[in-house]
């Protein structure tokens, strides 16, 4: 599994190139765009049909949003309650302030088990803290068990979606990866055959590796239970067969009560994969004698989340239940795919989550990776107003940039400062208009259009034409008309 190590650089927000630059890779790869578009069209179609059949969808959304908001407003209370109930049921709860601490806690637990191998249920949170790479460096092989994650791990690829992470890879590419890495020369590219190959590849691992790592879809404060939503049964294998189970969960995953699942489970699968319900959802509470792992740990990960809480407008980011409906609906994601976002969280939710998790130090191009069309807000099952947060973050990026000395000479900022000056006084403005008309003559072509502007304006005219300035402004025309009337 050595190939799995060390390759998350393109999804590491501290290293990834800015969005417009990263997006070019996909825009220039027609096969990748075709794969992404196909997958998204299928999910979108199924989702639309199943959401339409749910006549109380908007009421469910309102409740889901209210429950998540309430849980975040009272997060300290519910986390402590979860910790107490989980511990009482035989689980062990650990707190990790950042990625580094979470990795060390997990490594300690694995060392106590003398584990050299570990099986994993798909968890975006472990990808966020780059756990596999870390474990590999410590001599522990982490085997992904979700089909898409196996494809990525064996193919040395990066996830490009949070629900179907390998949607950018088509069947013949999967066939090539499996044939090469599993030594199956005669494998066909029929998804049925590919799936069967994955089943055989993992069966012995499920039966023999005694330690597993999972994420969590929900933590239930009232009971100390954890819920995992999946399709294939690899999750159930990891949750049932090993001796030791380690669950890594973001602190925001908590729901107050068991019955809150009646809302979340009606929305999650419909929003995520366009199914009425995903094949398997598992819920467990600490340790159950005679059933499943007898050694159970939960690692609660902060890693920037608590800092998002302080602004009520930005706090809604943490309501997310990771259904990916926003990226499926996003016209930008549809064109660029997931890798351009430079984070394991792509799409509109990634565009607001990643910069905030990075304390606005990295990924500052992401809040601009949106046309603000609002499709993401419309499909979000917990009503995260993503455009509102995007605008908030854009304002913060601008505020930060303004403070940098180098910005003083930036043509755009210079231009805006001059504009500020011009608009402040009417006489300056009118003088500037007259001057502008003279200047515009240079760039206006015979057809009356401006096709290219110098300097920063050039970026704008790259994709647009601008009508040349008229010989007279409305003000001038009005004033002249008044004189004529007299």
């Amino acid at each position: 599994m050595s190939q799995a190590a060390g390759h998350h650089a393109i999804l590491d927000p501290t290293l990834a190139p800015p969005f417009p630059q990263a997006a070019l890779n996909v825009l220039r790869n027609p096969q990748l765009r075709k794969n992404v578009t196909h997958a998204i069209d299928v999910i979108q179609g199924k989702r639309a049909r199943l959401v339409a059949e749910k006549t109380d969808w908007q009421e469910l959304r309102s409740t889901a949003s209210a429950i998540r908001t309430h849980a975040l407003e009272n997060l300290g209370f519910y986390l402590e309650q979860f910790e107490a109930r989980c511990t009482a049921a035989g689980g062990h709860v650990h707190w990790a302030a950042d990625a580094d601490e979470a990795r060390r806690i997990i490594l300690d637990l694995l060392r106590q088990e003398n584990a050299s191998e570990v099986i994993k249920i798909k968890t975006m949170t472990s990808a966020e803290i780059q756990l596999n790479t870390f474990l590999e460096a410590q001599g522990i092989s982490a085997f992904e068990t979700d089909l898409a994650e196996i494809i990525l791990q064996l193919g040395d690829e990066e996830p490009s979606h949070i629900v179907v992470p390998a949607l950018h890879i088509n069947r013949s590419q999967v066939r090539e990866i499996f044939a090469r890495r599993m030594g199956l020369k005669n494998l066909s590219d029929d998804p049925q055959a590919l799936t069967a190959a994955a089943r055989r590849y993992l069966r012995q691992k499920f039966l023999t590796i005694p330690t597993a790592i999972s994420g969590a879809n929900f933590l239930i404060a009232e009971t100390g239970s954890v819920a995992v939503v999946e399709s294939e049964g690899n999750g159930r294998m990891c949750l049932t067969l090993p001796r030791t189970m380690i669950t890594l969960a973001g602190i925001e995953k908590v729901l107050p009560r068991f019955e809150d699942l009646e809302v979340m489970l009606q929305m999650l699968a419909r929003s995520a994969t366009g199914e009425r319900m995903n094949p398997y959802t598992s819920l467990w509470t600490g340790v159950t004698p005679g059933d499943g792992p007898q050694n159970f740990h939960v690692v609660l990960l902060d890693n920037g989340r608590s800092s998002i809480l302080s602004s009520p407008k930005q706090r809604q980011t943490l309501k997310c239940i990771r259904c990916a409906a926003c990226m499926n609906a996003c016209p930008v994601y549809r064109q660029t795919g997931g890798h351009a976002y430079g984070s394991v969280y792509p799409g509109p939710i990634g565009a607001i989550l990643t910069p905030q998790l990075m304390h606005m130090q990295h990924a500052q191009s992401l809040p601009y990776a949106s046309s603000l069309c609002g499709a993401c807000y419309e499909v979000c099952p917990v009503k995260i107003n993503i455009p509102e947060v995007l605008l908030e973050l854009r304002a913060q990026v601008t505020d930060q940039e303004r403070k940098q000395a180098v910005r003083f000479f930036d043509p755009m900022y210079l231009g805006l400062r001059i504009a500020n000056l011009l608009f402040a006084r009417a006489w300056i403005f009118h003088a500037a208009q007259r001057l502008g008309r003279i200047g515009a003559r240079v760039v206006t072509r015979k057809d009356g259009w401006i096709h290219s502007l110098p300097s920063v304006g050039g970026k704008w005219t790259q994709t647009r034409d601008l009508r040349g300035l008229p010989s007279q402004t409305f003000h001038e025309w009005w004033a002249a008309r008044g004189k004529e009337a007299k």
Partner: protein
Amino acid sequence: MSAPAQSQQSTSRERILDRIRAATQPSTAAASSYATLPRNYIHKGALNADARVNLLIERLREYDAEVIEATPEGLPAAIAAQLAASGKRSFVAPAGLPADWMAPGFDWKIDRGLTTAEIEQADGVVTAAFCAVADSGTIVLHHSLAEGRRVLTLLPDWHLCILRASQVVERLPEYFDRCLQPPALVTWVSGPSATADIEMTRIKGVHGPRFLHVIVVHDQDAPATNSN
């Protein structure tokens, strides 16, 4: 964990909770504000008992589950017919499975602490269920004695689940109403295991049972609200 690591742990716990408390309201009133959350979605379905069962059957079949119906008297024979049609020989049964569900003529292993290998070797498993939700075609297992440990309905490739019509609710919230106390273990099963990870093509059967069979027993005289 070593002593320094433990003190590090308690500091991180306090640090995280302090940051959360500084960013949010004090949580003394969490319970009362929870009670005021809007819940205007549909709680109870409107279908009668027959329509409810028919909806469940339709939804299960959409997931590629095999469904047949039986009368209470005809159940043992229906089970025997399903087992025979499966072409399989060896079955595991949860410790609390009714004796007359274990059709004669097959190899039965009753789970009184079977090893993982013994369960893995079985061709199939027969269980009861706690409840089923028609709207989403979901079977809910609470892993009682008649439903079996979680591993029992996971490793065998073939699962036959016996449901009584009175256990069928129309909508998910009605299942939660039936949980007088939150259960410690739940598995919500909606069809055989499946994936759509390759080009969004739904493939039946990955790691969980590839074949899900359901027998719905028409115990219509029992009131629909009486679950167990």
